[in-house]
């Protein structure tokens, strides 16, 4: 099977006041196409760093990251990302936020091919953006500014924006960490709906076991620093899932056990 994303032998070392620190060591992972894969791990284990490396925002000290057969060198709209903090451009409306990636693409293509702008380009961009705004359930809010939106709505716009450029993979770094519990549950359900409709490959970082059990096809458990994967658990619960079912609890317990494993006792897999 062709993997969508491969992470091979990634190691991350950085210098700090205490000397050299290894954030990640020997990280391996394979992500299947259209799969929803969650990465969980204790605080500071490096899961966010790993995700940022997939996004191209940071470089590994050694190892490689390959998407669709091509190595990752830097950020690109090919790998969409949703951050934990609210990241909408406050000076742009919802519509203009979602259009952002398309606008940049248009400028780049315009330079290369001599087109991409102009009236037809604008119209296309608008239609694509409106489609994704509808997908995240925010039709009617196109002309609103971020300051007028609730936390949950902001993250939905962020998702729409990341999807608008039709990336090969969607990276999410605890995207629902800044909203309240109820909104969180609602957003999780909506995310699953979006995933099912778009068939995107999603790599989702969280430290909530509950969230991982509810969302993921597979859950990869990262050890404490220096981080590596110690377990990859298939969550074969049928969807739609019940958060409080017996089976869900079983998975929860297994994951918690793996999470609590001491670093010295853990063995990196793959």
């Amino acid at each position, binding site marked *: 099977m062709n993997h969508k994303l491969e992470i091979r032998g990634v190691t991350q070392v950085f210098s700090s006041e205490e000397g050299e620190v290894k954030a990640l060591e020997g990280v391996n992972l394979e992500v299947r196409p259209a799969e929803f894969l969650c990465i969980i791990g204790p605080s500071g284990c490096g899961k966010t760093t790993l995700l940022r490396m997939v996004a191209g925002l940071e470089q590994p000290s050694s190892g490689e990251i390959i998407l669709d057969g091509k190595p990752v060198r830097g950020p690109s*709209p090919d790998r969409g990302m949703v951050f934990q903090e609210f990241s909408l451009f406050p*000076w742009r409306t919802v519509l203009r936020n979602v259009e952002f990636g398309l606008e940049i693409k248009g400028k780049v293509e315009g330079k290369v091919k001599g087109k991409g702008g102009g009236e037809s380009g604008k119209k296309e961009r608008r239609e694509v953006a409106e489609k994704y705004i509808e997908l995240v359930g925010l039709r009617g809010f196109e002309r609103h500014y971020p300051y007028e939106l609730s936390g949950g709505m902001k993250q939905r716009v962020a998702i729409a924006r990341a999807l608008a450029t039709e990336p090969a993979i969607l990276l999410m770094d605890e995207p629902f960490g800044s909203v309240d519990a109820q909104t969180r549950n609602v957003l999780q359900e909506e995310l699953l709906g979006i995933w099912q409709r778009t068939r995107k490959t999603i790599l989702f970082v969280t430290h909530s076991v509950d969230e991982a059990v509810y969302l993921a096809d597979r859950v990869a458990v990262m050890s404490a620093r220096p981080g590596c994967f110690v377990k990859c658990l298939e969550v074969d619960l049928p969807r739609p899932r019940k958060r409080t079912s017996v089976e869900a609890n079983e998975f929860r317990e297994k994951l918690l056990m793996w999470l609590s494993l001491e670093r010295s006792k853990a063995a990196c897999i793959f």
Partner: protein
Amino acid sequence: MRLPREEKGLWLVPLVAVILLWEFSAVFVVKDPLKLPRFSAVVFSIYALRDVLIADTLVSLLHFGIGVGLAFAVALPLAIGMGWSRRVFKAVDPIVELLRPIPPLAWIPLAMIWFHLTHYAAGFIIFIGAFFPILIDSYTGFRDVPKVLVETGKVLGCIGDRKQIRFVALPYALPSVATGTRVGMGVGWMCVVAAEMFAVSDYGLGYRLFQKFYFLHQMDYVVAYMLVLGLVALCLDRLFRHFVEERLFRWKKGIVK
């Protein structure tokens, strides 16, 4: 601007009170038109001077335009450099902080030699006044661009300093640039009298106040022009706020709340 009903026109009360106090003190307490010209005399002077007043105001606005326009044109690119790059900031900031406290007045002798008695000499003094507020507020705006916004831009394809500045940093910093420009305009206008003290032109509010009314001890005219200086500044400020800041600040209101 929508104000609650009790606050509409609130500003009129102290203003009228001050005017009445002024007239009263001038007529019954000070009784010396040189020490304190009457408010009514000052208002009459504005009327008496109306022809030359308009010409003077236009010339002062010319000097102001030259000074502020130049200040903006020089400060903005420098602010982008200083705000965006720590290295540029560290390299340039000491020079900026050295020059900043030098009062515009102190630049007059140099201005006279560099620009002779032209409108540019006056514009230069106003430039000195307006430049630093614009620079500092602007580079602060650029420096404060949140990292998450820049990274969001990157993952959406905004790669490279130029694109990042154009699509992320500049829009974010624009309200700060506007504030700096407004403050700079205020300081620049305050330099008009200094800028026009040395006969760079036959017209100008500062010129006439200092070289004509002062030397002929025409204190009611002096105060009249002082009022005009204040009123023009007020108008410039309000106009700027209305046309520029109301537009740009819509979204910032949401953040600051």
